[in-house]
């Protein structure tokens, strides 16, 4: 797929974006400024907490798994010599050599197929897509081979593979390169699908994905790579994993449940804080972490407390992750709802290239806040 939608384009775009959506607006990020491409690991404070960018966390997860298990290897376009299109695989070639970190020709269906073949033969490949938009060329391999071979072979051929790369919109890359595939992969039996938000999410979920004996799709977010988060001492250890199918309550509250994932978690937290300040309401924010399996238990438990629910995501509205969450809420928690559940999603349009329109095509902290105000009748 198109090779020219490369990191620096996004860097330029990020600069543009950050002017519009100042990262400083988030009280949850102790380091507000986003400097993509720069390793920003700091010294630990007294409690052992360190600042990690999401990029560093992913890099550490990969390095640790490569170190601990010689069946693990990474392949993809530009992952070795170039250190990865988004520098997630930085220094891995130098450290682990060209047998473990492999550059491929531009052929998504080819290298995804190759990786699946290696997995069916007992290795544990990590297959990087430069973006999930390009993985559409390989979706037959992922859906029809990786996800189904165990079942179709009568259980004799497990496929321990991790597919990873940035998902969702970035900035200024047009309709063909701004898509969110959570709902696509989330609908496939046989796949596990996770989507990290913070640095801890990124490290724990990626490591779990590599160790999981099933094919796992890890949907990262390009706009998050440069964001810093505190990483607990525990998460810095090389055996830290986050179990799949378990959502995390990022902020607890009693008036409204916001169910969200990936980059929208941060936006929802900001909206929640604003709602507290302006209206005195306490919003509970649930970070899904895992799309398939989906932790409906945590969602319903929260609903029983708040009696109101809103789903927030950046995918298209139709047949999406939010649609699924709302349907499940209705199935399992209808009697606890005091108001119709609502959703905030990306707009039902091919993503515009024009900056202003692009801005309006995806949830912002403001839209989340406004919709919550409506739902709560504040």
């Amino acid at each position: 797929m198109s090779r020219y939608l490369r990191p620096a384009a996004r860097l330029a775009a990020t600069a543009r974006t950050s002017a519009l959506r100042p990262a400083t607006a988030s009280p949850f990020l102790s380091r507000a400024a986003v400097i993509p491409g720069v390793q920003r690991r700091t010294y630990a404070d007294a409690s052992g907490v360190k600042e990690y960018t999401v990029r560093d966390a992913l890099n550490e997860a990969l390095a640790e798994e490569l170190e601990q298990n010689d069946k693990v290897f990474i392949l993809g376009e530009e992952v070795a010599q170039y250190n990865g299109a988004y520098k997630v695989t930085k220094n891995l070639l130098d450290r682990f050599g060209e047998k473990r970190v492999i550059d491929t020709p531009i052929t998504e269906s080819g290298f995804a197929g190759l990786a699946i073949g290696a997995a069916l033969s007992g290795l544990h490949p990590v297959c990087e897509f430069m973006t999930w938009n390009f993985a559409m060329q390989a979706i037959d391999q992922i859906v029809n081979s990786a996800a189904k071979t165990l079942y179709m072979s009568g259980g004799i051929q497990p496929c321990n593979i991790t597919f990873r790369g940035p998902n969702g919109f970035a900035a200024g890359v047009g309709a063909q390169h701004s898509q969110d595939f959570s709902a696509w992969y989330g609908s496939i039996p046989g796949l596990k699908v996770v989507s990290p938000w913070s640095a801890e999410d990124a490290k724990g979920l990626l490591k779990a994905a590599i160790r999981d004996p099933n094919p796992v799709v890890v949907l990262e977010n390009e706009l998050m790579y440069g964001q810093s988060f505190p990483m607990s001492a525990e998460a810095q250890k090389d055996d830290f994993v986050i179990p799949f199918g378990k959502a995390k309550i990022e902020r607890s509250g009693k008036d409204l449940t916001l169910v969200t994932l990936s980059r929208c978690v941060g936006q929802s937290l900001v909206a929640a804080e604003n709602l507290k300040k302006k209206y005195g309401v306490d919003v509970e924010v649930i970070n899904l972490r895992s799309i398939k399996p989906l932790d409906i238990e945590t969602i319903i438990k929260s609903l029983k407390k708040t009696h109101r629910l809103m789903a927030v995501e950046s995918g298209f509205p139709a047949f999406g992750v939010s649609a699924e969450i709302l349907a499940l809420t209705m199935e399992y928690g209808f009697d606890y709802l005091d108001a119709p559940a609502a959703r905030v999603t990306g707009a039902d349009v091919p993503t515009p290239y024009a900056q202003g329109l692009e801005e309006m095509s995806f949830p912002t902290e403001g839209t989340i806040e406004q919709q919550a105000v409506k739902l709560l009748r504040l």
Partner: protein
Amino acid sequence: MKRIRPSSLLRRPVRVSPTTLQHVHRRTAASLSQRPDSTHLKFPGALTSPFSNTMKYEVPSNYPALPTYRAIDQHGVVVDPNFEPDMTEEDVIKHYKDMLTVSIMDLIMFDAQRQGRLSFYMVSAGEEAVSVATASALTKDDVVFCQYREQGVFKQRGFELSDFMNQLFANVKDPGKGRNMPVHYGSRELNIHTISSPLATQLPQASGAAYALKIQRMQNPEMPPRVVAAYFGEGAASEGDFHAALNIAATRSCPVIFICRNNGYAISTPSLEQYRGDGIASRGLGYGIETIRVDGNDFWAVREATKKARELALQDGGKPVLIEAMTYRVSHHSTSDDSFAYRARVEVEDWKRRDNPIARLRKWMESKGIWDEQKEKEARDSIRRDVLKAFAEAEKLKKPAIKNMFEDVYEELTPDLKAQMRELSEHLDRYPEEYDFGEFEGGKASLEQ
């Protein structure tokens, strides 16, 4: 992908279509049989393979690399004794200026991107001859699919500087209505399909377009004979779509010229890591396609090869042809790339100095006495002025009309979209002081249905 169709399990009657009659496309395989004592194999899948009594594998390295055709050498001296330039002096100069224009525009726009006046740009330094010379051998009616580094094709076919700039600045005159990243040009008048980001997808589509041209002409022989030209890089040729395109074009006899710009790099990946065979050309032969490799820095060689390709593509009712033009990507991949991270600056400087398509044609023109230092300076100055003028004008133009944001998702506005448009219009009426429509073509009036 494997598809099991119940109907394919049944014996199908042989369908006789006009296509199968006109071309050497008869499905005779069913009647093949192996005769006793024959020296040749007669399996349906290999019709003329002689029997051999020696068990031996063929080794690619035992075959010499396919040659690279040149008409003139690095010094602009003619080396092909049969080469006769078939252009008037004015025409040569026009094409030289097209190459120069692209190269000067590229430099200016690259810098403009660096200044933040554009979000993105891609230059084609080192590859000007491949696009301009191939385009020079096509007709206006031929249909073109580009990848994204073929500014020269657009220029040669009549795209004006203002057309480039309008797309780059996504203003009201951008035929793409501001919906694409920069350099995704397209032109209905010039029969060039709009550039689409996903790599290599244009190739099977080009085979399909060529098939359509062929069928149209069968139905209406009055139509002029037309071919499709499809451009791509050697990196794109690793995508499955490339292989699908060549095979389907060969089996369906589609009049399409596949033009590969083998420029040595796919972003950071050098050709040597992209494939192990003899370039892209060797693959054409594998698919049963007539193929040539040319020196892509030689304007004349590329033009001659494309003229011949067009002739071949229209023979026998239509067939595909493959051209592999060898060049060197002097430029960075795009404004998002710093290629000195993976290749030596001296390597690039070396190519710029030693062999460059523009300098080579210039040397030939100088040897013919139709060009000199003075003319060169004048041409460069005037092109630079024109580019800057078009740049300044395009930057000033209004943005596309507001209504454009509702259009073209579907062929017709759906009831939903109409309702949204009405809603927006009412909203704007209600809060006129909140919005400034000044920068959009037609202001708010464009929303009136």
